């Protein structure tokens, strides 16, 4: 009986030690950022990205299904607004479209491209950009599916970049 008691205590102690050894976890982490602008320094480029929420999952969603929007603007008179994907989206030009892959937390992907009227694809510094005409100081575009895609359930982060292109 004493031996059984000892074993039980030891088992409980081991169980507690094991439980205590489990690392605390941080899940579903998100990040967001913006700029604080002080003084006469004007922000030369602004960018806002909006991913659509509560979309229905869908097999074989048609090409061009809208997944989000983006808006960029500048107060610079010389440069042209240029937009591209964040590096994690592995952007590449396919059939004249600036495409990028977005992934959910399960690793499922959707092939997308950036749709921006009157823009042309330009490679500078090794990065492909969609560049708007110099007259367009405020542009609105969409993130759409590139070809037929399965829209699997999940959260797909999208990071875009905007800059001034000086030819």
């Amino acid at each position, binding site marked *: 009986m004493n031996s059984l008691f000892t074993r039980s205590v030891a088992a409980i102690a081991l169980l507690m030690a094991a439980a205590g050894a489990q690392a605390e976890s941080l899940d579903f982490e998100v990040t967001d950022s913006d700029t604080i602008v002080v003084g006469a320094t004007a922000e030369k480029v602004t960018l806002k990205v909006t991913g659509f929420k509560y979309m229905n999952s869908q097999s074989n969603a048609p090409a061009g299904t809208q997944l989000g929007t983006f808006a960029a603007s500048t107060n610079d008179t010389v440069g042209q607004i240029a937009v591209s994907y964040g590096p994690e989206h592995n952007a590449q030009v396919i059939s004249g479209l600036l495409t990028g892959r977005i992934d959910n*937390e399960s690793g499922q992907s959707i092939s997308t491209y950036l749709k921006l009227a009157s823009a042309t694809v330009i490679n500078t510094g090794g990065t492909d950009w969609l560049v708007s005409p110099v007259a367009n100081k405020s542009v609105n575009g969409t993130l759409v599916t590139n070809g037929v895609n399965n829209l699997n359930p999940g959260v797909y982060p999208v990071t875009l970049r905007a800059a001034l292109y000086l030819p």
Partner: protein
Amino acid sequence: MKPLLIRNTLSALLLCAATGSYAASVESEVSATDNVVIGAASEKVTLRVTGYKNLKGSESVLGSFYVSTTSSLGQLVYTLAPEHEPSVYNTGTGAYLIMGKIKNEAGDPFQIYIDGARVVNNINGEEWAIPSSTTVSGGVNKHDPRQNIMPGTYNIGLRAALYQQ
């Protein structure tokens, strides 16, 4: 006359070559992120950061943030992005806040803190603010409100997550 013509032609050619050697460039780059959410999987944590624009430098609040969760499975936590070198600020009134540094394009540092919670925990080696509710609207504040912030553009980034023990 002929040597003058040759010199002029050469000058023009050199000018053309010099002009042609200017490389196209991209400047003033910014980035922005959001989520596309498909199906029943809902966004567990929402975070929005807004930096105030056209500040004079004397204002004590430089921006705001909103963080919320729809999940009851973990504790909502938030902190500054790593580039701000987040640390703990003891207010001396029983509250602990996350403080850090922001920098403009000239590299001028400025100390800030974010509010919205009074408790900070070290989780896996990082300091996180622990709010008492599932929705927080907070401010990005000057650590010393009497100090003017230098002109420039300062990036401000936050992280939020669900903490499970």
